[in-house]
């Protein structure tokens, strides 16, 4: 398959993940959308690396996976703390930054 196919696939997954981020109410649901977007990025990286015979794509992908894992861990920890404090994790209710 040409490079374009992989890139298009990644773009689709990215868009779907964005849709999830924008529309989910639950904070955990938003994080799931973010996961999808990051996955799409990884596909992109690896595809480019493969088609340019560059190992950097794979290595970069490794890094992003690790960072994503860390981010998910901390993010979910925050969500749990919010739940403890405010008994809700509905994004609509977490509007303390309101202007």
């Amino acid at each position, binding site marked *: 398959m*040409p*490079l*374009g*196919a*992989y890139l*298009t*696939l990644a*773009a*689709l*997954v*990215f*868009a*779907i993940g*964005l*849709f*999830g981020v*924008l*529309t*989910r*109410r*639950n*904070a*955990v649901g938003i*994080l*799931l*959308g973010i*996961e*999808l977007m990051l*996955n799409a990025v990884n*596909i992109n990286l*690896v*595809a480019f*690396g*493969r*088609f*340019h*015979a560059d*190992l950097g794509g*794979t*290595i970069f992908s*490794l*890094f992003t*996976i*690790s*960072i*994503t*894992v*860390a*981010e*998910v*861990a*901390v993010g*979910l*920890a925050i*969500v*749990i*703390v919010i*739940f403890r404090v405010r008994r809700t994790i509905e*994004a*609509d209710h977490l509007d303390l930054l309101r202007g």
Partner: protein
Amino acid sequence: MTAEAPAFVAVAVVLLAASLGVVLTPNLFHAVLYLAVALVATGVVFLLLDAPFLFGVQLLLYAGGVVTIVVFAIMLTERLVGASIRQASRYLVNGALLSVAVFVGVVSFLVQMPASAPRPAWAADLTAAVGRALVGPFAVPFELLGVLLVIALLGALYFARTEG
């Protein structure tokens, strides 16, 4: 690699279907399961791209670790027995529009790509090369990554502590 094309199509379909499931299903728990499927499908894509090591890492960390964490989080944040894990969605149309727009924007660049070249030569398994790269040219980012993980661990511990 003529077997690659139908394989790609199949994996793509699975991946897309699972992604849609992640974002559309009302039940959060189901969403997590769909995510697991999507993550595995992504791993298969990596395989198709001659990155078996990455496939392994994906399965271990993502499909294994992240899904587990998320499940734990869901359990801790929703009222459990009898409680519904349903959630409605917010401004579906707007979100859909924007997502489509972003997709179109990205594709607009893709269509301007020159004609596809075939894949260059590539060793089947480059795990050793990856390892050598991690402690070679990419040593600093690798170490920093370690620091980051420590910080994340500490952060999570801090958040998880009980007050008082």
